């Protein structure tokens, strides 16, 4: 029997994770993080989600606490998110939250309080390999969340349990229904948890000083103007407000002169992607090892090689926006990852 702390978001996955830990005979405590102190109407850290988590903990008859990490969340996740868009890059706040909040402050606090493991409801698994613990894709391919956990190192993996990783979402829900958990039929949280009804544009519009700029074609032809680069992401096709006969994508964002360049799909393709802050839970793979690189949370992995700070794609891939995460897999094992620079 281990002493485990379950991070309970108020959603169905972490609710079931807690109950699985109890069924396995562990000494279980639940905790919900209050992360976003601002206006809220959706997402995974609203007051009603905290209430749901407390209710589930009460149903499971386990102690439950709320940790208020709003100030660190602002400093480590929200402020960098806003600054990234202001620079014309595309951050992944969920990755930064996992890095700094759940496997940062929360893991640290769980150790302080004498817990053996931190448990979450993420759909991913931890495999014991010859080289040590490694993160592995969850059994439900459609719900796999290993991408947002790529940064976990061996020490963190050794203190982490992911009990729903071997279940499909359907099995998780069925389990919750059997236990009559209040969260059984709760819908998925899809969006960035601190972004409210108005969406990203409204959220950023209130926070980023906007400077208008030009929208040009790849050949330099002026296509129009915009009122701020934070509205745009590399690869974006919708909401460009430019009429064109063929499909146009954002292929470049220049934060210095606020210029947004549109082009065709081919203009997005790149043979290499430069990365920063590369992290590997074990040894760095050799440059000749064939890996599969994934550039979005549920994107299709593409064959590649990692050389120094560069990913070399076997076939050219759509450009990865600066700030986005590239995760390398060997079969279904996470080998490491980095952030596009």
């Amino acid at each position: 029997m281990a002493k485990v702390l379950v991070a309970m978001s108020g959603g169905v996955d972490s609710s079931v994770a807690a109950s699985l830990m109890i069924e396995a005979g562990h000494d279980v405590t639940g905790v919900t993080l209050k992360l976003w102190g601002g206006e809220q109407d959706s997402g995974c850290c609203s007051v009603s989600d905290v209430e749901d988590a407390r209710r589930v903990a009460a149903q499971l008859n386990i102690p439950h606490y709320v940790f208020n990490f709003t100030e660190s969340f602002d400093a480590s996740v929200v402020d960098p998110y806003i600054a990234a868009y202001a620079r014309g890059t595309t951050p992944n706040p969920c990755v930064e939250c996992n890095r700094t909040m759940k496997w940062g402050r929360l893991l640290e606090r769980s150790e302080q309080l004498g817990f053996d493991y931190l448990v979450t409801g993420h759909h991913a698994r931890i495999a014991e390999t010859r080289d040590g613990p490694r993160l592995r894709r969850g059994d439900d391919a459609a719900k796999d969340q290993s991408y947002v956990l790529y940064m976990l190192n061996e020490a963190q993996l050794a203190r982490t349990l992911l009990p729903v990783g071997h279940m499909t979402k359907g099995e998780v829900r069925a389990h919750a229904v059997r236990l009559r958990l209040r969260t059984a039929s709760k819908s998925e949280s899809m969006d960035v948890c601190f972004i409210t009804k108005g969406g990203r544009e409204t959220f950023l519009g209130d926070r980023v000083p906007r400077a208008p700029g030009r929208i040009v074609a790849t050949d330099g032809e002026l296509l129009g103007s915009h009122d701020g680069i934070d509205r745009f992401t590399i690869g974006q096709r919708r909401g460009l407000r430019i009429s064109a006969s063929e499909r146009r994508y954002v292929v470049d964002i220049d934060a210095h002169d606020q210029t947004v360049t549109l082009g065709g799909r081919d203009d997005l393709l790149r043979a290499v992607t430069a990365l920063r802050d590369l992290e590997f839970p074990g040894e760095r793979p050799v440059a000749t090892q064939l890996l599969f690189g994934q550039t979005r949370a549920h994107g299709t992995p593409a064959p590649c090689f990692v050389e120094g700070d560069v990913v070399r794609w076997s076939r050219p891939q759509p450009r990865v926006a600066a700030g986005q995460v590239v995760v390398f897999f060997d079969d279904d094992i996470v080998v490491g990852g980095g952030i596009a620079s």
Partner: protein
Amino acid sequence: MIYLDHAASTPMRPEAVAAMLPYLTEHAGNPSGSHAASRIAKSALEQAREDVAACLGCDAREVIFTGGGSEADNLAIKGAAWARHDEGLDGVVTTQIEHKAVLGATHRLAKEGFRVEHARATSDGIVDLDELSSYLDERTSLVSVMTVNNETGIVQPLGELYELVRAQSPHALIHTDAVQAPQWLDMTVATAGCDLVSISGHKFGGPKGVGVLVNRSRTDLVPLIEGGGHELGFRAGTQNVAGIVALGAALMATHEHRSEETIRIAGMRDELQSGLLRQLNNIALNGDIERRVAGFLHVAIAGVESETLLVALDVLGVCAASGSACSSGAIDPSHVLLAMGMSRERALSSVRFSLGWASTQPEMEQAMLGVADAVTRLRAVAA
């Protein structure tokens, strides 16, 4: 379990439980009706009103029963401000160390266009009367200052406040959130100069969900809940007879036993305090302890986050609190400590132990050992 969170809520006094039971089990009447069953309920309600009036030092016709302390605060502040707006009175003056129920009401009034000012506190935990007095003028409608702060237990200078308000704002009403006071202070004296006084049943051995607003100057208040004209038209809705009867019984018992309970509890609190100061280094008391009521011990424990410490204490069976926990259970850095000019770091490492009528001597020794053990362990890991 060692319960050191009486400032959050107290166990019910046996007198209160006994008094309310017949109104849960036997007497079903609605006090507003005209038959025998109603007369029983009405009679109990009015007896409770008289008992409460006697303990609070007012007339029974000045007692308005509410659904708790927060409602009493809201009725006093919004109700008075709204009622007097047409007389050209638009100023509302309060403090930054009030309970959220007062701050919620004043923030609402500020949004509606009232001139609302919140005075800071000194590092002693006492409202800065110099600053407060700078906000008083001829158009001040209401001044709201709590009797005893709910985090630090510091008694606020209502007597001096009374003099200032009478001199500078002839039309102003004085409201006090006295929710933390009845257990410790003789209310007939402590709140004598206040026009409006809020209390809450569950802070002195009564049930949750029932409170009182005293309307001593019988001023007009715009009700928050309108309907059948109950409570002299100030609060519609069939009265919570059982709860009100229990509140009355709890207040009577509190009033009767106050002197001896205060001495006994202060002794236990001092024992816990000196034990902690002896066992742990780098801990400091928050606020001016000369002005602190008997049941409060509010300490800053350097190098330990209170959020973590409270979990460690809970595991040991010690129930304490920090800041003012919101309904979600999350702990914000205390607005009270910040208003006293305290650093965020110290505010986030401060813990409140609050004793009450049910506290016992052996609990103090156990609590002291538990706190010392938890703090020592957490400091060792953090180092």
